[in-house]
């Protein structure tokens, strides 16, 4: 038959749902390297989130406040249950625990300066407290982690609050990880590790095993610090209702709940994407636990994991959080995933730097490599110069200021003089999933899927 007469075959471009390009890439990478992927930041998949809620602004039945003129307070007290010296914050937005080691010393310094200017707190991380962050942070929360790297009673006494870390939203049930390229001489010395070792932190505390032990451990920390400092307990979001109750039982002043969107400096991708529950669901369970034990207002709740905007903060507060904690958002404010870094007021392209680590601005999650092209998640002497503390502090301060302005804008629109007066009743959900997880009615209905007394 003449070739010209044969009908041309159409190429099929039907992508499989189960074996889409990212799954094919995943399997082929696994086959080539025999190794799971490790990366930074948090869950990337679409999850029910604060975006799926909206506020019911004031109208006929509620009375709004003047957006620009009337007072709307954001002051926040943490640690009022047992501590002699509770923490008084100007804004309900704090900076989450991130280690020196994961971040450069410049970044820790910048976060401290920005937080201090905004009247809020910063938090240490695995590996201990640096002189820079203690000097620049007016209010510094000192983490007591399973690894106890760099943990010592002198720093404990220097802290303003203590956070016992049980887990992290990105990897509940897992310990920290810091690959060898970030374990430079200073990091190694602080953590008592050989230089360049691939550090995998313990996932369990060495000196206690359950909530009854934790109660004694918390009392030890109180005794050592003469009952001055608030003690936080941080959990990764999984069985949050029970975990929060146990944290309260153990004597926590403040419970920190970190949802699965929370970030990490380095963790297996399978862990980040497949272990833990979304922040939205965890927050509601945590509030249920506080209410169930009649502890709302006595024990404060901080929620973290994917808080990015002032609207997110407002929704978290309305659902019952006392404050939020932000990690990835402040890194992005510093320039994470930006196309450029700043030197003497000039923007200098970082695109080539992203290419060398196989990433691109907007998509990068290569914190684990230590080769951060914008100088944030690095211990490299050259790269870390790309983020100067003064510039970083200004950017983070601007970001926090913006969030706080957005928060008060929403609170005023809902008729609140105090952001802590935002309430669940001010919210409705846009999706059935969010309505079910947050126990907030679907917009335009009074339907809360799964609620016992649903109409």
């Amino acid at each position, binding site marked *: 038959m003449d070739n010209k007469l044969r009908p041309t075959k159409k190429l099929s471009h039907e992508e499989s749902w189960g074996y889409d390009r990212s799954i094919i890439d995943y399997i082929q990478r696994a086959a080539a390297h025999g190794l799971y992927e490790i990366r930074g930041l948090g869950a990337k998949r679409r999850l029910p989130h604060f975006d799926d809620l909206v506020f019911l602004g004031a109208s006929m039945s509620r009375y709004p406040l003047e957006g620009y003129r009337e007072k709307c307070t954001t002051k926040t007290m943490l640690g009022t249950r047992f501590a002699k010296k509770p923490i008084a914050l100007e804004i309900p937005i704090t900076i989450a625990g991130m280690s020196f080691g994961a971040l450069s010393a410049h970044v820790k310094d910048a976060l401290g300066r920005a937080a201090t200017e905004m009247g809020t707190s910063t938090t240490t991380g695995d590996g201990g407290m640096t002189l820079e962050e203690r000097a620049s942070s007016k209010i510094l929360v000192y983490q007591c982690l399973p690894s106890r790297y760099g*943990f010592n*009673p002198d720093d404990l006494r220097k802290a303003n609050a203590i956070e016992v870390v049980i887990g992290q939203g990105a990897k509940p049930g897992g310990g920290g990880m810091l690959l060898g390229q970030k374990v430079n001489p200073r990091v190694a010395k602080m953590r*008592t590790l*050989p230089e360049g070792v*691939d550090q995998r932190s*313990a996932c369990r505390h060495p*000196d206690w095993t359950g909530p009854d*032990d934790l109660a004694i451990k918390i009392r030890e920390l109180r005794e*050592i610090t*003469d009952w001055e400092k608030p003690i936080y307990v941080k959990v990764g979001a999984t069985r949050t209702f029970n975990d929060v109750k146990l944290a309260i039982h153990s004597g926590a002043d403040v419970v920190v709940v970190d949802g699965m969107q929370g970030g990490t400096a380095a963790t297996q991708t399978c862990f980040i994407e497949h272990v833990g529950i979304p922040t939205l669901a965890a927050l509601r369970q945590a509030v249920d636990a506080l209410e169930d034990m009649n502890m709302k207002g006595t024990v404060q709740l901080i929620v973290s994991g994917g808080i990015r905007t002032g609207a997110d903060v407002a929704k978290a507060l309305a659902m019952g959080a006392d404050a939020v904690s932000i990690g990835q958002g402040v890194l992005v404010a510093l320039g994470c995933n930006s196309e450029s870094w700043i030197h003497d007021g000039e923007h200098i392209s970082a695109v080539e730097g992203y290419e060398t680590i196989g990433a691109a601005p907007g998509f990068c999650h290569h914190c684990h490599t230590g080769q951060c092209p914008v100088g944030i998640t690095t211990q490299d002497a050259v790269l870390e110069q790309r983020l100067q503390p003064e510039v970083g502090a200004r950017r983070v301060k601007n970001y926090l200021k913006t969030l706080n302005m957005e928060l008060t804008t929403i609170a005023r629109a809902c008729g609140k003089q105090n952001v802590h007066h935002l309430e669940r009743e001010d919210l409705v959900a846009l999706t059935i999933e969010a309505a079910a997880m947050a126990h907030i009615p679907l917009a335009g209905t009074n339907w809360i899927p799964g609620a016992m007394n649903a109409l």
Partner: protein
Amino acid sequence: MECLNFDLATTSLTEVNTFLHQKSASKGVRKVTISNPNGAHNIAVGLNLPVEVEIAGHAGYYAAGMNQLASVTIMGSVGTGVAENMMSGRVHVQGFASNGAGASAHGGLLVIDGDAGLRCGISLKGGDIVVGGSVGSFSAFMAQAGRMVICGDAGDALGDSLYEAVIYVKGRIKSLGADAREEAMTDTDLAAIGELLVQGGPTFSIHKPEEFKRIASARALYHWNVDADQEY
């Protein structure tokens, strides 16, 4: 006021600890005895001065936790986490110790005359531990630096995921943990054991350094996969 006694039957624990933190130095107290401890938790925690403390009985969890400079003697047994995260000084348990003895200690010396429970010296970061009796399973788990002298036996998984800490065992080792191995003794090891036995006190003089085995890290877990980036 060189020597002072607190009776825990009539004085609150917080009062005793606060005194030790805030007032004992200015009052020139050199020695403090604590009577009727009755297994109370958190006795003499967070000390930061060269004072001598004697606990006349059994103590609960975290006795002498995070000790700095002080010399604390417990004339009885202790619960979990004795001398946890000790930085310096000396803690002496004349009886038995429970789990996690000397956990994450950065410095100082912990002496236990009797046996220690599970996870003795877990996460050790530079402290020294001398145990007259045996230690339970998972002892020296992820120990990073420091030395342990065990005059009795060791349980399962001794030295699992060990870093640079070194363990000396006189008795039988039920099993070694991942990456822990027995290595040949050197003169430095013999001298270290001799020194630690002397520091342990006269009851340790019945042991001879050459009777011990050296357990250290094979360092095969230092890098999480040497085959990384292999393409077949």
